[in-house]
């Protein structure tokens, strides 16, 4: 994601809530402080497919906003 972002391509990392600090710190470490993190509830591991789809649907509006912002 770092390499993709450095090439100017819109990129976002899906990150569960407790890992947001780590995600932000790593984005700064790798030189892409503006790398967008899309926050989802925790835990994510062990979810059945149906629950994963619900989580995915919940963040679609965030992703749409990111894309719209990027193409302005």
């Amino acid at each position: 994601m770092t390499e993709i972002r450095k090439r100017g391509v819109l990129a976002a990392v899906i990150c569960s809530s407790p890992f947001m600090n780590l995600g932000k710190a790593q984005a700064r470490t790798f030189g892409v402080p503006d790398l967008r993190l899309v926050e989802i509830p925790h835990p994510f591991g062990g979810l059945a497919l149906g629950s994963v789809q619900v989580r995915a649907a919940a963040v679609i509006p965030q992703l749409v906003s990111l894309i719209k912002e990027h193409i302005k």
Partner: protein
Amino acid sequence: MTAISALLDADGASVYSDDDFDAVNALVRERGWGDGLPVVPPSEQRVAAMLEWCDRPWDEPFATMAPRYSGVTPLLLAANAVMAGCRPEYFPLVMLAIEALCEKQFNLYSIQATTHPCAPLLIFNGPVARELHINGGNNAFGQGVQANATIGRAVRLALVNIGGAAPGIADMATHGSPAKYTYCAAENEAASPWEPLHVERGFPSDATTVTVIGAECPHNINDHQSLTAEGVMMTIAGTMATTGANDIYYPAQRPLLVLGPEHAQTIADGGYSKADAKRFLQQHAWLALNRFSPENIGRRFMVTFRDQYANAAPDAPVHAVKHAEDIIIVVAGGVGKHSIYMPTFGGSTTPVTCALKRRDGSYVQTIDECRRA
């Protein structure tokens, strides 16, 4: 003025505090630089004394440490070694451990940031380990010996303060473990019936080495009844095969078995070499497939080992370790019929062994050689 005064005057190089034990520790707590225990204030004089045992340039990085991927300089590391309570002559071994941990195949990033409770375990071999009295005998992994306590602690403080793995920020361990305060011991080479670990891994016996392993806390193996090699190893195998360790779910794992001297002798008296023992353990350490949850079978074994388990019977064996040669065996501890087993973080970390060397690549024989001329 000390030999490091000029380095400390550089912009951003130093943090100043009142020359007071309580004030320094309050600052360390406030900045999140400690491990919860009091630290030895890293005064200019103490850091300079530590660096008298380092002949590299003090302000040049010799390793890059995840997850911050910052450069580890002897100066930064020496401050952490002082805070940990290291004697200055321990510093070459602290640097050696950091070098090993920052090798790519160890995968320090994963060990640092994971929810898993693993910690870098340091196993020392060789003459300098003995010279510095790193304990490999009675209570080897417990408290009481300065070398074990402070070398391991220096590494942990560096992992936090230089590597950036502060709890909740980058260190996401669900529970952590006491091993994250210090996790350091020597092999009890004198009590071993076999070749020591570093010789097994290709180093001469007179080399001093550290082997770093991303390991869980020790799991005890208590067998006071078995009289034969096979009996002891059956108990060990039963302890190795567990549903809750990462190793069993990966194709390659390198767990550590620390045999107490009495168990080691029983196994050797049964005619087993280390390699023989590893083969026995690999064959006998298994669980039936139906001991695992349906989700773990479906989402882990059927993914990683699909060919093997797609049509397997419910009681098909799942071996704790897939390759005998991957089991690491050392002998350590004192009296008593106990051994200990340390599962690891799993397949994405590989133990690394580094040796203490002179500039010309030959092996250091005594710690005095590491003192600056």
